[in-house]
């Protein structure tokens, strides 16, 4: 797969050019050049064809917001790609704290690297077909004995001092022991990619031999490499991008039918709500069906409350860990029954714990119109 290195093999696992014939194959297919103003970096398409991930410092400088970056996929060449091959992104998301950390510690501190990731989104796909999958446990897997490799477009192979041109490169698949440094920032020695490769994909091989995106390359020296490791927190990015796309996680589940498990819970019998009582009536459902470290990816509600006056009602959902969200807040004065079908409540719960007590909270604050909860069902999906 990788051309043998001339002479004695160095101890450092340094990037090698990926053969032209492999560009159309997974996982190389998901890689691309990221061009932002005068800067260049790398990126990879994951979770949705209209999304790519890169390092935050590729798209955001210490001056402030910049125009969205452009994507060039499947390119290999000595010179820069032609302008017509660029696909402009429409926007991007990054962590709020990233700018604070840059201002406080500068762009190359360990704490800043621990937030150095961005998700760019576009109005058209960056790759055709199914995108790569994120490894939401990348932060654990990269510190364990998983095989990993880093791909991307280095401008220079800093270990060997060769020019990288605009060719896709990859380190050799290997068990690299990444060590924790600060937050999501992990670090490894004897591993080298090169400048210009920020945003490159850190692949982690699962037990089935599939490559998943476990991190983003954010820093490096001639024989050292730092990465932003993926965790469940990155679901905040996916949730933020959800309304501008066609629900990345739902479409992925539909396309691939893997990596998501779900459980359906329902209250056993109707429950009367005390009329005019300004306190919560609780209807609990317990979940104990997900593996450790699983996090909520989707919450769907079915709710049927009969009443002559739904403006009297306040309804909320309290999830494990104290995650609280109001579903209905006295709207609809003078109208009757409260019905929710396939109501997506993922927003506040995404990334939280799925196992534990999920409690529907209901108040009928004004007397005169009794209310009955006839149906309360939750479908919890977790990854």
């Amino acid at each position, binding site marked *: 797969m990788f051309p043998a290195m001339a002479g004695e093999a160095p101890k450092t696992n340094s990037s090698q050019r990926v053969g032209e014939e492999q560009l159309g194959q997974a996982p190389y297919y998901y890689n691309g050049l990221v061009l932002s103003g005068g800067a260049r970096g790398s990126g990879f398409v994951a979770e949705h064809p209209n999304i790519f991930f890169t390092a935050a410092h590729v*798209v955001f400088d210490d*001056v*402030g*917001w*910049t*125009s969205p970056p452009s994507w060039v996929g499947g390119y290999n060449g000595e010179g820069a790609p032609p302008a017509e091959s660029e*696909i*402009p992104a*429409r*926007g991007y*998301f*990054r*962590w*709020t704290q*990233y*700018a*604070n*950390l*840059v*201002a*406080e510690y500068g762009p190359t501190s360990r*704490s800043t690297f621990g937030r150095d990731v961005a998700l760019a989104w576009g*109005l*058209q796909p960056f790759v055709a077909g199914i995108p790569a999958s994120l490894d939401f446990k990348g932060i654990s897997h990269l510190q364990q004995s998983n095989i990993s490799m880093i791909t991307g477009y280095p401008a220079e192979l800093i270990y060997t001092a060769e020019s990288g041109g605009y060719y896709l490169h990859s380190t050799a698949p290997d068990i690299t022991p990444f060590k924790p440094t600060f937050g999501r920032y992990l670090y490894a020695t004897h591993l080298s990619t090169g400048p210009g490769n920020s945003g490159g994909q850190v692949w982690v091989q699962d037990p089935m031999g599939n490559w998943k995106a476990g991190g983003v390359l954010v820093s490096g020296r001639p024989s050292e490499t730092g990465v932003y490791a993926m965790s469940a*927190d990155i679901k*905040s*990015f996916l*949730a*933020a991008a*959800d*309304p*501008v*796309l*066609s629900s990345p996680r739902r479409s992925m589940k539909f396309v691939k039918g893997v990596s998501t498990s779900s459980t359906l819970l329902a209250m056993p019998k109707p429950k009367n709500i005390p009329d005019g009582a*300004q*306190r*919560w009536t*609780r209807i609990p459902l317990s979940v104990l069906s997900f593996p450790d470290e699983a996090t*909520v990816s989707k919450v769907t509600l079915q709710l049927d409350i009969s009443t002559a006056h739904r403006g009297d009602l*306040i309804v909320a959902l*309290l*999830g494990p*860990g*104290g*995650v*609280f*969200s*109001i579903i209905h*807040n*006295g709207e609809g004065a003078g109208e009757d029954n409260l019905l929710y079908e396939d109501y997506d409540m993922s*927003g*506040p*719960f*995404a*990334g*939280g714990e799925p196992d*534990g*007590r999920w*409690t529907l909270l209901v108040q009928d*604050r004004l007397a005169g119109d009794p209310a009955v909860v006839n149906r309360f069902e939750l479908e919890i999906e977790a990854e």
Partner: protein
Amino acid sequence: MPRRLLLLGGSVLCAWLAVRALPTAPTSAITESISRSAPDPRPRGHVRLAGEWRELVALCEKGGDAESLKRRLAETKERWLLEEPEVLAGVIGQLLRQGDDAATGIPFETGPGGALRGWPTLRVFLLDMLAVTDPDLAGGIAREVLAGTGSAEEFAVALKPLLLGGPWQAPAAELEGHFSRLLGNPAWQDKVGLAEALDLSRNAALPGTTAALARWVDRAPPAAEAGIMALHETAAAHPKLALELIASDGTLFNAQPGLRASLLARATISDPEQAAGIEHYLRNPAIPVSEKQQFLALFPLRSASTGFRLYGSPPSPFDGAAVRADDRAALDAAGRWKTDPAMAELGTALQSLEQRLQGWVRQGGD
């Protein structure tokens, strides 16, 4: 974000912040002693929760490692959430009034849905729980804390029950008052609690809180970067608020023209009022050409920052259909602006904007 706050995570020190004459004997012995001497007049739930609280305080005093204490607090939270909300609110109110506290060595960290997953002190832990107990009782207790606390972190978390919406949402004037107090406290300017509470501007979406935040940022405080981010998140979610504020105060951000340009670049041009505001800005001779060029290089800005927030869901300010509609409206506007003699000196920037928008409109399927 202040360095010393970030480094809190490295500490495992638990120390008393407020000294009170609490028993030092093991909790089981205390409980036994109470039960032998006289019946406790408090309901059983109160006694049990107060006992668990004393155990937590003792654990901090003893100085365990922060990770195991964090797990213990998370378990306690899960268990306490099974209590009747009114009982739990009552106990939390009582404990907060007692004033006992201990540092945990755990950095402040917000998780999904505004629920904390890192509590720097035990009182912050109590306030985090308070927000999901009985909301009628919680509001009153939170106001007591807001009136008297010297901690920015307590202040930030105590605001949660006042932002629940519906009958529990605090009036605009009250929220504006709390926000001004937060921003005006000199001792809190570099506190993580202040940085977290800046999100009140986005959440409450009030002209008064947005103006207070903007004027605070305009004075270039130590946490200005956090303020700028909060302003951008407010403008991304409520562009009209930012536009009206800037339009009403011609001096605002005169020293930070790039910030003014980028905030206005979030305008929704398909809204006629905002479109008129942007045209007025571009024609305004008092605005430097370089600032207008910065605006045009970003407009319509649909990038944003996000992450877990104390007062609700992570920011997710854009909608696909609205973005496409705004891009079309912006393309129409750019075409008009190009022929407007008042904008002649912006010709190159407008040309570039038009090309960018044509690309996005094409991508968007029109």
